[in-house]
């Protein structure tokens, strides 16, 4: 092989077969990675919304709780949180995760612990994202809703929260990208996700570089696919706002070659967020070589 003649060892056929025909174990690991990330992100978004609303509450202890929660979960390593939730709580006799059977389907204890930890950790971040997004919605929107006789709850639910979604999606997308990669940490408590399976393949084949390169490519594929989905969601939201935006194609990062878009994209909506959110979820200038 080309590489071995240079004194390097790269088992190309092992690499290629692992990439194109991954083992069942590897695919199961991939599946675990995906559902861990999706479930944790979904639950974290719901809890994050509750945290954001609690942070705006009139009840001071509730606000203090959210502050402390956010401070703790954002200020300590996710890895330590995982070990504390799974091993620490059991060792201290506080809570021990057990396998749960749902029909013929078994949710292993380690997977439960991982979902709980990732959810609680990500909820701290989502709480901050949603809080910022809610305050980015023009207060006049809330008043307009109230002026038509909506209760404060209706005004939030029907008018403010749907508009905040536009400010939530871009940072949520970034977080979900990180979440898919961070699920590899669950390997330390023994969750058979993609990284742990890769380690196991490595220890039986010793093709270290090849198999980790395959894993890296699969993670890259996951985050890339998510990038497309995220763009599609953002475009869909912009359409809901009546803001035309050309489809963002994957080659748009070649914008430095192309002409800068000169035409303005629709009219920007009257409500721009505060400076911290400027540029988030706002219509992009058309750019890119082919646009």
């Amino acid at each position: 092989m080309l590489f071995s003649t240079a004194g390097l060892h790269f088992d190309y056929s092992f690499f290629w077969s692992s990439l194109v025909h991954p083992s069942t174990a590897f695919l199961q690991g991939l599946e675990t990675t995906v559902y861990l990330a999706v479930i944790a992100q979904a639950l974290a978004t719901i809890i994050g919304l509750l945290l954001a609303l609690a942070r705006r509450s009139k009840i001071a202890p509730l606000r203090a709780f959210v502050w402390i929660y956010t401070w703790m979960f954002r200020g300590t390593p996710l890895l330590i949180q995982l070990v504390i939730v799974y091993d620490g709580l059991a060792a201290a006799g506080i809570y021990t995760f057990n396998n749960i059977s749902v029909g013929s389907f078994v949710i292993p204890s380690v997977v439960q612990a991982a979902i709980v930890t990732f959810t609680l950790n990500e909820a701290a971040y989502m709480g901050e994202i949603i809080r910022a997004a809610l305050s980015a919605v023009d207060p006049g929107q809330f008043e307009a809703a109230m002026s038509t006789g909506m209760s404060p709850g209706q005004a939030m639910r029907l008018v403010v929260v749907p508009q905040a979604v536009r400010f939530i999606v871009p940072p949520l997308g970034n977080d979900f990208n990180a979440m898919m990669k961070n699920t590899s940490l669950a390997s330390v408590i023994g969750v058979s996700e993609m990284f742990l399976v890769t380690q196991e393949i490595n220890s039986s084949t010793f093709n270290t570089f090849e198999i980790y390169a395959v894993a890296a490519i699969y993670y890259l594929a996951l985050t890339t696919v998510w990038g497309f989905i995220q763009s599609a969601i953002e475009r869909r939201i912009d359409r809901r706002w009546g803001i035309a935006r050309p489809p963002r194609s994957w080659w748009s990062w070649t914008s430095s070659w192309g002409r800068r878009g000169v035409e303005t994209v629709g009219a920007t909506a009257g409500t721009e967020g505060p400076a911290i959110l400027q540029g988030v979820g706002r219509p992009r200038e058309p750019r890119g070589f082919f646009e």
Partner: protein
Amino acid sequence: MAQPGPTQRGEVPDGSSAPDVIVHASDVHKRFGSVEVLKGVSLVVRRGEVVVLIGASGSGKTTLLRCINHFERIDQGRIFVNGRLIGYRSDARGRLVEERASAIARQRAEIGFVFQHFNLYPNKSALENVTLGPRKVRKMPRLQAEELGRRLLQRVGLESKVDVHPAQLSGGQKQRVAIARALAMQPKLILFDEPTSALDPEMIGEVLAVMRDLAKEGMTMVVVSHEMGFAREVADRVVMIDDGVVVEEGSPAQIFDRPAHERTRSFLAKLL
């Protein structure tokens, strides 16, 4: 226009004794922190009347308007809308306590509000902007609400913009959608907070035309405006507010041609 009967401070006027009175504010005080913005304002608006509030910026006219649908709490005095105390109820000892949010919401459903900056929902079409209130507050079926919405958009001259989003409307068109949105709740009264102040000059006319039509149809309107031409032509009564008090009020002819008060004269002089 007849002056309202003077109301003693603290006395609760009986709204039912004057069925044609839509708004009855008496001795309203409002402070923001240490600044007292309203220093005892009284105002009566009768059914079908168009009352234009004028005055320099910072005089308190917008604050008064916002108190009428309880966007602002008041510190003293009483405001009755449709004969009912707005935003408050009397407790057993006759003191005012703030109403529950749901009760205030029911009262606001009867009061339209048109904002200086339109405040249309940017994520909804013109039609959805108009129909959201009737559907969610009045529980009107979607089809019926849409029929109502189309009729109202036609009434403000925007039948061709039914499915267009606010981002694609001009300022004047946005404000006309906002007026249709207020009308959709079939309010007994519409409050306008400087409805043309954020508009380019060439778009002011189309909004004032819609308001003029509404006035002709007998809608009760309280308008904060700097459009003296509109006030002169459409208002039944012009109320001059300065430094948190009503300086004088009267017919447009009285106020504009024979202002009794020095502060009114100097305010009008600055506009010319």
